């Protein structure tokens, strides 16, 4: 039973190929959502489907209830301008770019892991870059998203509508992940040092 559990926890070639597949799918999905869909919408001149913050009251609220704060709603903006299309696409495009870079770095790290020689300086650098992209990428996406929401508000609310800076990204999961990956990078740094020491031991 204990041996079975050990086998289950071992990162074998099925896990390796499974993770590779997931990373590729994630990259393709991110590129599709971040680049392909906005471009296709633009080329085919379709209405801009996006999410904006608006204080327009919901018509079907009952018993005199009103919307007290601006809310995020999915909208279709007919005949959007070029800048509105670019702002609407920017957060997803930046997210896609970050996902593709992180996935590519992880795929290279996986290749070294498969080769049996993972404690290398280049993998330390890869993990440090991943940690940086996760932490500061989340902040960057949050900022771009907030500015995009501001830029798109007039398209929905009119010039007099709400156009405030709204921060909607929850940072702590990303910052926690950044620190965890950073700690793993530090462990890899020690591993690389031990490997270098063992290499010249007679």
């Amino acid at each position, binding site marked *: 039973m204990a041996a079975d559990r050990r086998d289950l926890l071992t990162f074998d070639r099925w896990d390796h190929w499974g993770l590779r597949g997931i990373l590729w799918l994630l990259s393709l999905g991110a590129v599709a959502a971040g680049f392909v869909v906005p471009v296709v919408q633009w080329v085919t001149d379709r209405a801009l489907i996006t999410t904006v913050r608006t204080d327009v009251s919901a018509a079907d609220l009952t018993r005199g209830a009103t919307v007290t704060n601006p809310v995020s709603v999915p909208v279709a903006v007919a005949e959007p301008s070029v800048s509105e299309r670019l702002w609407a696409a920017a957060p997803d495009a930046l997210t896609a770019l970050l996902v593709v870079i992180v996935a590519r770095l992880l795929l290279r790290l996986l290749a070294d892991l498969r080769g049996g020689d993972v404690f290398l300086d280049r993998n330390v650098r890869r993990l440090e870059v991943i940690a940086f992209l996760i932490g500061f990428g989340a902040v960057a996406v949050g900022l771009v998203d907030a500015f995009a929401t501001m830029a798109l508000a007039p398209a929905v609310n009119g010039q007099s509508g709400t156009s405030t800076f709204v921060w909607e990204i929850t940072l702590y999961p990303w910052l926690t992940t950044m620190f965890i990956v950073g700690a793993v990078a530090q462990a890899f740094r020690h591993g690389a040092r031990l490997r*270098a020491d063992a290499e010249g031991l007679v």
Partner: protein
Amino acid sequence: MPAEEAHRIVCHLDDLLAARGLTLAALSEAVGVSVVNLSVLKNQRAKAIRFSTLTALCEALDCTPGELFTVAAADSGA
């Protein structure tokens, strides 16, 4: 990652082998250390040596650690 630490230890394995008329392969067989590892030692590429390896080498070559290794003089610098 710090740069590889410099050292001034010089290994005289090739001199001792020549003086005793031994080959690297024969020494490898006598001490149970691979020819590759002995070659690393002989060519000054080793970073560390196990006490067990040192003991075996000293026994096989009938020498002391001080005959096998010396510390090179430091560069006087500028």
